[in-house]
């Protein structure tokens, strides 16, 4: 298949982009993983990998994994519980072998320690019950790394236990993986190897797929109009549209005018016509939601009936009237417009909605100017608070409230770009996090989601649908519908040719 960009490295743990998961996930295994052929990731869809079984202690504060025997790393060394401990010690910053970047350190804030009970058993000791830990361990973002290989080597020459061995990464050229004939799942993988040709130019890449140079497009990267083009030029291509659980959202600099004023923040939230974004950009497809992806693809999100009553989601005309009143209260009006820059990353998926946003803001006395920021320094600029309002995309590693709430809205989280912090709500995060009854937990998550929207913490515009196409002879590919990070093991994908 083609790859959309030069992979920043091969180390999944150091990156937060699915560009890395897609090419690195086949190299590794997790303790448990989401069933690769169930499109919806959920706690009911976990399958064992390096762990053969797992159990919770009575107080739900210890999670014990029995490990698979006879598994070897690609360099021939045996896999043991020490590797599990090493991996999580590195993730929690407890190891001498440090990651250069550790974007998911916060995922494990509740893990007190990981112990290697014996060579074939490891236990996660939690500070308090947290059912979501299992979901996090099942993500494509949570492979087990070998103890005997440095973090630096894992970036350039990774060693795993997965179905494919790493061969080479040539910058701007290709990533090559080859079949591990000693893979612990006998008879797998079916493919002899996977080659990712790096083609950043999307037109070239799509034309290459149409011409038969590639068996598959880069997953969830084909827009709806492009998918139509592909189908018209290559009618036998199999194309699937899937929700990605990537939320297009607004970030506001709450520490500086004008968004230090609650009236202006609320006005902005009320000005949004979300359906117009979907109609213009996705031919009406994709979905409107709160902080969590809504059903049917999302497991935890607010359903449309609940969303209707949340601030900014109801009748657009009425909302905008209210927004104008709030703007007037903040000192703006028909004769005194607020001029501001709408910052966004220099990527089409960011720029296009930002342009629509600017148009919508005109209705509430805001004259927006597009401020396109070079993609590579986007997060640095946000971290330095060099923006007023920004249009951002946030992917959810797993469809689970813990990941979304703590990572994006938690006090002090590095990925909580706006520094929104509501101490009361943080307590509610903890309450839902330790709730072991899924139905009760969902209710708590809904309450939190509504409150986040009311606080205009980070207004969510939509969750986009994106396409993936493959040649008809490619079999057994499943595209996940509630996360873009977990479905790329490819161990039982095969080609009928």
């Amino acid at each position, binding site marked *: 298949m083609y790859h959309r960009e*030069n992979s*920043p*490295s091969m180390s999944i743990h*150091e*990156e*937060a*982009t699915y*560009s*890395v998961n897609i090419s690195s996930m086949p190299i590794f295994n997790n303790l448990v993983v989401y069933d690769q052929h169930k499109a919806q990731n959920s706690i009911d869809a976990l399958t064992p990998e390096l762990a053969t079984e797992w159990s919770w202690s009575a107080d739900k504060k210890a999670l014990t994994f029995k490990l698979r025997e006879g598994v070897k790393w690609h360099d021939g060394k045996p896999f043991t519980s020490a590797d599990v401990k090493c991996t999580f010690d590195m993730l929690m910053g407890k190891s001498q072998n440090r990651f*250069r*970047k*550790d*974007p998911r350190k916060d995922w494990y804030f509740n893990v007190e320690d990981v112990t290697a009970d014996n060579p074939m058993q490891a236990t996660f000791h939690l500070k308090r019950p947290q059912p979501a830990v299992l979901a996090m361990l099942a993500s494509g973002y949570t492979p087990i790394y070998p103890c005997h290989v440095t973090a*630096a080597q894992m*970036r*350039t020459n990774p060693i795993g236990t997965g179905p494919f061995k790493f061969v080479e*990464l*040539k*910058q*701007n*050229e*290709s990533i090559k993986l080859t079949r591990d004939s000693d893979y612990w799942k006998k008879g797998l993988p079916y493919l002899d190897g996977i080659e990712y*040709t790096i*083609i*950043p*130019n999307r*037109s*070239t890449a799509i*034309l*290459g797929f*149409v*011409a*038969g*140079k590639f068996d598959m497009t880069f997953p969830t990267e084909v827009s709806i109009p492009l998918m139509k083009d592909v189908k018209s*030029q290559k009618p036998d291509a199999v194309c699937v549209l899937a929700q990605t659980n990537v939320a297009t959202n607004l970030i506001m600099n709450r520490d500086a005018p004008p968004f230090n004023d609650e009236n202006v923040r609320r006005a902005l939230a009320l000005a949004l016509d979300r359906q117009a974004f979907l109609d213009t950009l996705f031919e009406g497809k994709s979905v409107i939601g709160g902080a969590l992806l809504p059903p049917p693809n999302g497991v935890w999100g607010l359903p449309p009936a609940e969303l209707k009553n949340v601030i900014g989601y109801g009748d657009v005309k009425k909302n905008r009237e209210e927004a104008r009143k709030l703007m007037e209260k903040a000192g703006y009006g028909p004769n005194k417009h607020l001029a501001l820059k709408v910052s966004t990353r220099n990527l089409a998926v960011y720029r296009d909605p930002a342009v629509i946003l600017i148009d919508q803001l005109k209705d509430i006395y805001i004259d927006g100017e597009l401020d396109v920021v*070079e*993609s*590579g*320094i*986007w*997060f*640095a*600029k946000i*971290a330095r608070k060099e923006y007023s309002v920004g249009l951002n995309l946030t992917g959810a590693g797993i469809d689970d409230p813990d990941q979304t709430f703590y990572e994006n809205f938690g006090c002090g989280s*590095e*990925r909580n770009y706006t520094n929104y912090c509501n101490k009361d709500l943080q307590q509610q995060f903890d309450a839902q996090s330790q709730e072991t009854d899924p139905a009760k937990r969902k209710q708590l998550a809904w309450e939190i989601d509504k409150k986040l929207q009311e606080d205009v913490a980070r207004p969510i515009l939509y969750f986009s649908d994106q396409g993936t196409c493959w040649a008809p002879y490619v079999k057994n590919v499943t595209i996940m519908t509630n996360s873009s990070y977990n479905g790329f093991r490819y161990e039982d994908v095969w080609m009928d040719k």
Partner: protein
Amino acid sequence: MAAYLIRRFLLMLLTLFGISIVIFALLRIVPGNIADILFSSAGMINPADKAQIEKDLGLDQPIVVQYAQWIGGLVRGDLGYSYISEKPTLDEIAPRLPISAKLAGMALAFAVLFGIPLGVISAVRQNTPLDYVLRVVSLSGLSLPSFWLGLLILMVCVRYFGWIPIYTEPPKTWWNELLLFAIPAAAVGFRSSALMMRLTRSSMLEVLRQDYIRTARAKGASYAKVNFVHALRNAVLPIVTIVGIEAAFLVGGLIVTETVFNIPGVARFLVEAIRSRDYPIVQNLVMFIAVCVVSINFLIDMAYLALDPRIAYEK
């Protein structure tokens, strides 16, 4: 002559020194450094980890020290390590150079082989239908952006031949390589050939009106000899100048063409390296390109001597 050569060589060194300062300074003036870029794929910035990366890469050192370290390394032949791939810079640049060199060479050859003869024909057939056609062709060459032309070529190939001339793996035979590079070379060379065609035409028109051309014709010299020996030789000086300039401009054209045709050459690599603030790659590669451009210009100055006996540098 020897004094002139020494003077030119020293001037080249001075130019390269100036370029090295400009490259080094520009890279540090643009917002964001490599640590920012590295964190970009992590979707967050951890100030302590960022500071550690800057320390590891020596970016916490004073700017003058960083410059001295780079130049010192360059003199010793130590180009450092790529910040992104963590491989030696030379290992990253060396395999890509021949690819771009071949592409640039073929593009320049295309430009010269088509541009100059067609320019001569256009001039000697001034105001005929053939001249009009060639002028339209040359105008299109100057007007069509090479990325658009490249994409158009790809679309036509896919639509009508079900084949796409993009680079996905190293070609196995020289014939495959020629086929693979011919279309991108034509796409990137088309603009240069158009420029050369127009310049050759105007230069030739001026020369063809000279008395000595009329004399040559009156003496019964053949059509080809008058046009290609007497006229072209005298019209060629500005064309040689433009060949030199175009050779430098080709790097710009290659960036687009390498991107559209997915050719893993140095031009595309350079752009990616600039985006990633991969200082060792950018600094050393731009210096290499600067050396090439300065050398080409030097060779062109030398070519003037051979082409026009009236020019003498020893004065």
